[in-house]
């Protein structure tokens, strides 16, 4: 199996409208992901992104997605391969598209249990153009093992996208998930680091997260996840303010499109919509250069 050539784009207005969309929580698969259709998966994500109007995917690969080590407890070797592969994939895509600036941007995915490896991966990633750090669920967010990682991320102006189980009331198999309370403890220890609390629609009770993280000014939240509860986005924006909320899709671009449409229907101002669709992404990722054609997006 190899990479699949992107489907020819369908012409016309993007489904989510003409204003740019930055997906701050995207994932791809590598050749070691253990699923035969990894190339089709990646091509589908890119094609759907074009249809929707996503101008940039800020993405990671979670090791081997369970093939040679668990998705949420990825081995150092799998993470090194995934990070290298993600950056190379972004460059191959840029060349294939014939564009000067990339539309794929890379997180450095790490496992905090391997602290030296994590720090090394971040340093290596920064040198190769990574724009953020992705932490999944290998260690609780408030564990001291994350402190050096958070400090290094701040030093390089890298936001940390942290997987969160909204209101984790017990342990779940397959991951050492954190919730908003635990992420906020880390954020309070590192006020100069910016954190992106992952997928408010990604499982658990989002209402708990709104209470847990609303006052932590260095914590942003992304709207991704399969959950499309009516009232969820309104409550999130009310709690965090539009300037700390980012549109994103994670594993389901269909719910991402639904939320982009719903943003138009819940009475936001144009400035709020712009913040959520792309401007907060520009603010969060100072190392990224997001472009629409020749236009460089600035906050």
């Amino acid at each position, binding site marked *: 199996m190899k990479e699949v050539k992107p*489907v020819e784009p*369908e012409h016309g207005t993007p*489904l989510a409208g003409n204003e740019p969309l930055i997906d701050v929580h995207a994932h791809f698969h590598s050749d070691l992901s253990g699923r035969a259709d990894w190339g089709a*998966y*990646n091509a*589908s*994500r890119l*094609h*759907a992104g074009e*249809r*929707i109007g996503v101008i940039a995917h800020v993405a990671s690969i979670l090791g081997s997605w369970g093939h040679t080590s668990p998705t949420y407890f990825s081995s150092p070797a799998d993470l090194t391969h995934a990070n290298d592969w993600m950056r190379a994939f972004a460059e191959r895509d840029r060349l294939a598209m014939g564009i000067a600036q990339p539309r794929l941007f890379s997180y450095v995915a790490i496992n905090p249990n391997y602290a030296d490896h994590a720090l090394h991966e971040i340093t290596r990633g920064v040198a190769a153009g990574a724009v953020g750090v992705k932490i999944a669920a290998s260690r609780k967010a408030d564990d001291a093992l994350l402190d050096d990682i958070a400090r290094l991320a701040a030093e390089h102006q890298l936001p940390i996208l942290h997987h969160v*189980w*909204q209101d984790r009331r017990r342990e779940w198999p397959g991951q050492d998930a954190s919730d908003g309370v635990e992420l906020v403890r880390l954020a309070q220890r590192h006020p100069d680091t910016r954190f992106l609390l992952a997928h408010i629609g990604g*499982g*658990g*009770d*989002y*209402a708990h997260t709104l209470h847990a993280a609303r006052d932590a000014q260095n914590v942003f939240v992304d709207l991704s996840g*399969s*959950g*499309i*509860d*009516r*009232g969820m986005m*309104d409550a999130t924006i009310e709690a965090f303010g539009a300037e700390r909320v980012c549109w994103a899709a994670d*594993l*389901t*671009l*269909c*719910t991402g*499109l*639904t*939320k982009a*449409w*719903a943003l138009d*229907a819940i009475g936001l101002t144009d400035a709020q919509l712009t913040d959520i669709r792309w401007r907060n992404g520009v603010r969060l990722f100072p190392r990224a250069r997001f472009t629409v054609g020749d236009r460089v997006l600035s906050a």
Partner: protein
Amino acid sequence: MTHKAQWFADVDVSAWIGPYPFRDVPHPDPEVLVRVLERERIQRAWVGWLPGVWHRDPSAGNERLRRALAPFAGQLLAAPAVRPDWPGWQRVLSRELEMGVGCIRAYPAQWGYAPGDESLTRLARGCSEAGVPLHLTVRFEDVRQRHRLDSAGDLMAASVRAVARAGTRCTLVISGAGREFIEEVWWGLTPEEQQYLRFDFGWVWGPPDDHFAHLARTVEPSAWVLGSQWPLRLVQQSRALYELLPALLRQSLSFTGRRRDP
């Protein structure tokens, strides 16, 4: 005709009104639903009484549903719940049918029916004789976020297979199923049995895993109906799933112009 002017669907088969017991849901009111349907270019909806799902006796909820929908007759069609393990259910069913329904709803998981429960088959037979569909809901919320008191669990695919195999010729509308559930039911039935199945696809995932595209290729186009689960979920999801299908698959699916509702 422009894209915007067209109706997207004749009917949303899976809507409710009324408050949800486990969290606040904004404005679960019929006048709001009517506005949402117009915005989303859906002509009408089959509407159930949401809190009644967790009542032992759905009768009072059905009456409140009728009163709430009365000003919107023609656009919002009642989907009352009939509990076929209770005495006199045939009388309840007849009365509801006389007043007019979009479909009849049943909640086997909340009522404690095991797969193969005979009462559900009897209800399906009654619906079939009246020519109205029987509507079953797989889930209301993602399992990861449910209230600890919401312990009924999901409807089992085995329950759907059992009633579909009973030979009642009742149209079964299944709401809230994902790919695995749909495939487990679809490929677990004979072609004759399959023709009475309808699935709303609001819980099926689109790209990049493309479950809906896969199902649209493998399951009969006539099996697909639009259902939103409003007011719990955003109505836009079905249109998003449809629009993200490959163009050829979009052409094979239509939710308007059917000779009759599912």
